């Protein structure tokens, strides 16, 4: 099988081999990952390879260079978590690398990552699969600055434990300045970054806020100054009491 990183074009206009499976079927297979498994048994090896590649293309093969999987347990119901995540404009609340996610008229969303050095990294995305209260899968479309896809799964944990939340994210870091900007934003450990974002999601869902010390006081503040005998207000009482054994 000829492996190469598939682009958005491959998904939108898949190469159809001259076998019994029609492009219509392959398109259908491409839009339903679970059906594809059955479809690929039909036809020659090339059809198999292409259909399988397209099935995988919906998630992993769309963006293959970086693949992250992580999970967390959250003491909320799958329904609560699903509906919060499904409203994608909420994502920047706990995904620090995102600036905004905005809904567009055609049901797609426009994502903007935080800018680094004035360079904007943006893309449009669509939800290509979802099962209510269980799963949401999204992927970038058109000319994304970064080809990417992701999914989140919500599964009820045993009684009293809430919900398992499992996230996968795939993306191809682009070359050039956009890639460099993204690398700066995400750091060298995208897996760790996604894990931290899930942790913030948990904090937000369980406590209503995200733990932080940003903005707190310290001796590092610009106007912080050491107090010495010279700058202590004169007249302050200093008293010391020594413990004495009975």
């Amino acid at each position, binding site marked *: 099988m000829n492996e190469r990183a598939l682009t958005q074009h491959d998904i939108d206009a898949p190469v159809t081999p001259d076998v019994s499976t029609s492009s219509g079927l392959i398109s259908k297979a491409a839009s339903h990952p679970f059906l594809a498994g059955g479809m690929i048994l039909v036809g020659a090896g090339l059809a198999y390879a292409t259909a399988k590649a397209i099935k995988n293309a919906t998630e992993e093969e769309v963006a293959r260079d970086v693949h992250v999987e992580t999970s967390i347990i959250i003491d909320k119901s799958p329904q609560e978590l699903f509906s919060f995540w499904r409203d994608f404009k909420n994502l920047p609340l706990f995904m620090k690398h995102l600036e905004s996610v905005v809904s567009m008229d055609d049901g797609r969303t426009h994502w903007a990552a935080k800018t680094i050095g004035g360079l904007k990294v943006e893309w449009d995305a669509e939800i290509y699969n979802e099962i209510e209260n269980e799963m949401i899968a999204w992927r970038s479309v058109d000319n994304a600055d970064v080809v990417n896809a992701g999914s989140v799964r919500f599964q009820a944990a045993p009684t009293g434990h809430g919900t398992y939340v499992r996230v996968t994210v795939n993306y191809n870091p682009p070359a050039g300045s956009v890639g460099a900007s993204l690398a700066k934003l995400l750091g060298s450990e995208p897996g760790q970054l996604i894990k931290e974002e899930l*942790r913030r999601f948990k904090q937000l869902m369980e406590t209503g806020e995200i733990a932080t*010390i940003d903005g*707190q006081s310290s001796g590092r*503040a610009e106007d912080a100054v050491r107090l010495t005998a010279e700058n202590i207000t004169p007249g302050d009482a*200093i008293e010391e009491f020594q413990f004495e054994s009975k």
Partner: protein
Amino acid sequence: MKAACWNGKHDVQVMSVPDPSIINPRDAIVKITTTAICGSDLHLYDGYIPTMQKGDILGHEFMGEVVELGSAVKNLKKGDRVVVPFTIACGNCFFCKRDLWSACDNSNPNAATAEALYGFSGSGLFGYSHMMGGYAGGQAEYVRVPFADVGPLPIPDDLADEQVLFLSDIFPTGYMAAENCNIQPGDTVAIWGCGPVGQFAIKSAFLLGAARVIAIDDVPGRLRMAAEESNAETLNFSDQDIYEKLTEMTGGIGPDACIDAVGLEAHGTTLDAIYDRAKTALYMATDRAHALRQAIRVCRKGGTVSVPGVYGGFLDKFPFGAAFSKGLTFKMGQTNMHKYLRPLLKLIQDGKIDPSFVITHRLDLKDAAKGYSTFSSDKDGCIKVIMKPELN
């Protein structure tokens, strides 16, 4: 505002720093009336705790008056007098809901750092390194208190600051250590370490029904406090064999429970070395765990060893065979503060204990550096230092 800031090993500086402000909706700002230096603060002072940064505001034992409230705090009002527990807990997670407040999942913004060392992170702490959250501490005039709807304990007017301040850490810590011993009527409890936590463990062991408490240390002033304040029997480990002596005192059976209130000694184990080597898992420690080893050796068969801490890294030459052969139970951990605040306040109100007995020094916050150096060097005469932002 004035604040005692960490500036390196043996270098505490009182600085003028910005007043804290509300950052999250569940925050409150407390104006501090009394604060204290903890024995574990000395580990910061001695430079043994990694992830400290110059300018970090120290202090995790404090109380005062609520002066500002975040929009989501409904159970407190301005002017309320509160003691604040040193562990920061959300009240919503799996652990908080099960009274395991020091294991809170949601209060450490640097959880990833603690995870690298321990597997999973516990709660954030005030004034105790960035691995524990990096929260500004309370050896200051004001402090920002996260999850203020969960932590701060309201105090009635008829109790003085000094009577209730130690609800912020050392009294619940000593109490939990004693509670973890599962004390039965007629039990003998041996306690290593007569610092303030040990003193409260001694008192708590008696409150929980112990028939005998044997206190072990090598500082005469601390042994004297244990004997005079609590009627503990005392042993000085510098001039006798503790195993021989305890065995003889208990008729050959050993104490029913043993409390290690000594913990990580500053000498011998540096946490920054542990942190670096944790990743390679090749660390060979020679922690000065004399107290813990002695406790394991002398504890009676089927007894309990209770460890209020603090331990940070790895122990070498741990007598696990002895522990197994005797079927010991180990109970340990950072104090689950919120479980104990109200029950222990009630003990104070009912006159069962006056925690102020441990105080030996009272200083103005301006003299924090002197407070640290005295506490560090004068083990005999200096047992507990409290500080006030303004001593009038």
